[in-house]
């Protein structure tokens, strides 16, 4: 035990003195740079979409609305997030496990190659107008086969990146017998595990779609494809959320001068997320025909069970804030609220992200109900919903991470001026999203459809009544675009220009009297088996039904 303690302080000291080693830093810097470049491209497309929907911008004939919408969706909700997650998790694994092993670095680089090949293939087909199928690529819309092959490379990249983290964690466990995996790395292992479980669905789907797109098979099972897609699509966004949550548990307590609330609780949140998540995909198919009533009923529960870890997290966060505030001398019921470092962007950005999750999560719970879903399905409400969850809760937490992660990697420090710019960026994002997402929610309730370029529907009165809201959507989108530009400026400034110096990687400590973390939390074999059991419980019955009782398959259509 004593040697373990000694070892830790020794590691801490070397980490402080030397900081991150250059080889590990390079991995993360490349991933993060690419992520933010894609954010800029995707954000620009978002602006075009927003202005179009406001009726202010007519897109030229060579640039189709559905083409840019496909690119926007894939770049932001798949590519930006995957790249950021990998850069961030590898940096944290390197920091908490005393450097990456050379094997893990090799996995990281080959993952990057695969992700880039995939992204380039996908974007090329989209730009060529061969794949305006949106990021969900629902058949019977049929894209060029190379679009689907690009997706295979994305999946491969995810597996490689995940394997690198597993390998690194395993070799650390071997070298540090009897010690628990540091919380940050625990999140990384859980996050990749969940992402890989989810990606099995999309891989199976794409392997059906490729021969169909080449014309080797004539038809495709539409229901089955949609179901397999959402096993991934749903899981992926929950992984992005888990990545954000990792920073809330690990970094934020340190930034506000507090301690971890409970190491066990954080680990239980990871485990529950891994076990329960994948079957939630069905809540995206509540309106789909071909799924029996009873299966849909069962999935209400499977879907709501995912709210449990989120509620645990909300509880833990407020406890951390209150304790930290009281330690600084706060009194009264809500005095701690004022003691929080609101002027520190490393806190403000993720805090707004968390607060946003309250209405966003509530909206999500509402949508899971059959009747309410009928009202909002495929309307702009849904787009408003996920711009809150992914666009704010996840993206703004990622921005908040960047303010310390990037200077940590580039061995620079954030200046007061950059902090101020960061505060402006955060408020721009919050207000822009308030306008954009707020109006999307509202106009969606009034019936305005999503994924539809601007139209007055022959001056139909109902459609005209949407216009004022759509104008606000455009205004919000413009503010957001300014936020994107500012953010990308800050990121590259922190990477190449900010003054040299030491920035720490904030890792919160446990309370002195914290109870030790039980060893069962690391029974990954059991968690995987339970996850497979839950996935089979959710999927075996409906999928066999979809295959055995399938209607004739559908040939491909090019709707654009």
């Amino acid at each position, binding site marked *: 035990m004593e040697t373990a303690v000694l070892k830790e302080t020794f590691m801490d000291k070397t980490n402080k003195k030397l900081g991150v080693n250059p080889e590990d830093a390079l991995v993360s810097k490349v991933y993060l740079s690419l992520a933010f470049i894609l954010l800029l491209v995707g954000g620009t497309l978002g602006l075009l979409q927003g202005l179009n929907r406001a009726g202010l911008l007519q897109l030229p004939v060579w640039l189709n609305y559905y083409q840019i919408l496909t690119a926007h969706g894939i770049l932001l909700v798949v590519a930006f997030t995957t790249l950021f997650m990998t850069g961030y998790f590898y940096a944290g694994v390197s920091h908490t496990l005393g450097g990456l092993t050379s094997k893990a670095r090799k996995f990281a680089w080959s993952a990057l190659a695969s992700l880039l090949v995939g992204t380039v293939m996908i974007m090329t087909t989209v730009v060529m107008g061969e794949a305006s199928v949106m990021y969900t690529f629902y058949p019977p819309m049929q894209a060029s086969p190379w679009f689907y092959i690009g997706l295979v490379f994305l999946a491969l990249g995810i597996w490689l990146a995940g394997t690198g983290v597993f390998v690194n964690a*395993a070799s650390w466990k071997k070298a540090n017998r009897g010690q628990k995996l540091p919380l940050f790395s625990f999140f990384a292992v859980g996050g990749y595990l969940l992402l890989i479980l989810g990606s099995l669905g999309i891989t199976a789907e794409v392997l059906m779609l490729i021969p169909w797109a080449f014309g080797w098979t004539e038809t495709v099972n539409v229901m089955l494809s949609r179901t397999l897609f959402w096993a991934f699509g749903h899981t992926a966004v929950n992984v992005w959320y888990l990545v954000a949550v990792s920073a809330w548990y690990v970094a934020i307590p340190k930034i506000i001068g507090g301690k971890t609330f409970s190491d066990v609780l954080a680990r239980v949140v990871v485990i529950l997320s891994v076990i329960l998540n994948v079957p939630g995909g069905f809540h995206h198919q509540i309106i789909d025909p071909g799924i029996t009533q009873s299966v849909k009923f069962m999935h209400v529960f499977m879907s709501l069970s995912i709210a449990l870890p989120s509620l645990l997290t909300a509880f833990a966060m407020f406890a951390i804030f209150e304790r930290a505030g009281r330690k600084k001398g706060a009194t009264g019921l809500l005095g701690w609220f004022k003691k929080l470092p609101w002027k520190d962007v490393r806190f403000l950005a993720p805090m707004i992200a968390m607060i946003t999750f309250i209405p966003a999560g509530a909206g999500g719970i509402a949508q899971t109900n059959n009747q309410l879903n009928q009202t909002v399905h495929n309307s702009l409400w849904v787009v408003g919903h996920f711009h809150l969850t992914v666009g704010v809760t996840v993206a703004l937490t990622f921005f908040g991470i960047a303010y310390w992660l990037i200077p940590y990697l580039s061995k620079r420090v954030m200046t007061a001026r950059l902090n101020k710019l960061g505060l402006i960026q955060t408020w721009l994002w919050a207000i822009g999203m308030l306008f954009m997402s707020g109006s999307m929610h509202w106009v969606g309730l009034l019936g305005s459809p999503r994924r539809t370029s601007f139209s007055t529907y022959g001056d139909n009165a109902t459609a005209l009544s949407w216009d004022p809201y759509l104008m606000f959507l455009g205004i919000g989108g413009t503010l957001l675009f300014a936020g994107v530009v500012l953010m990308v400026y800050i990121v590259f400034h922190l990477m190449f220009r900010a003054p040299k110096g030491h920035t720490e990687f904030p890792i919160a400590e446990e309370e002195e009297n914290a109870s030790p973390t039980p060893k069962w939390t690391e029974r990954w*074999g059991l968690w995987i*088996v339970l996850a497979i059991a839950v996935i089979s419980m959710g999927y075996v019955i409906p999928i066999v039904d979809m295959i055995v009782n399938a209607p004739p398959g559908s040939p491909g259509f090019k709707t654009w």
Partner: protein
Amino acid sequence: MRQAMYGLVLYVFLMLPPVANLAESVMTIHMHMQMPLFVIAGMLMTPFLKQQFPRFFAKWNSNGVPGIILFMIVVIYWMIPRTMDEALTIQAIEIFKFISLPFLAGVPLRDSWKKIRLVGKNIIFVTLSVICGFMAWLYIFSPEQLCNNYLIVEQITLGWAFLFLALSIMIYFVQQFFVDRSECE
């Protein structure tokens, strides 16, 4: 004796006619939900029974082998398609199911698991996954309806569920060789 209480509550709950009817209306849920839950109910009650009848367990199941053999026999019996049919049509067999799964499978399993050696455990894992694999093959590819009470679709569904079960047991079995048990128990 909290555990025994939970076990008893679960046991009674599963036997309530509406619950039993619902669970038995879908073939996969019948075999892969109701039956395992009965076994779990028995497992939960085991410590209580051992406390009540310590001599009995010591005498008949001293090294765990008789218990585990009994467990395997009962479980395999209930995997046979015909027995499921009979449980639905013959009242006495249904009652036998309610008794055999918890008390002749769940209880001996928990009592034996701590007693048998590692080789024994490994044999059980492999045997179970092979049997499940075989059942998967049988239910998926059988051209005929094996149970009078269930349609062929349900049979195929059950086959796939067996495949996943076989896979899960296999994964669990294999991962133990990579993970140091003392590290996480």
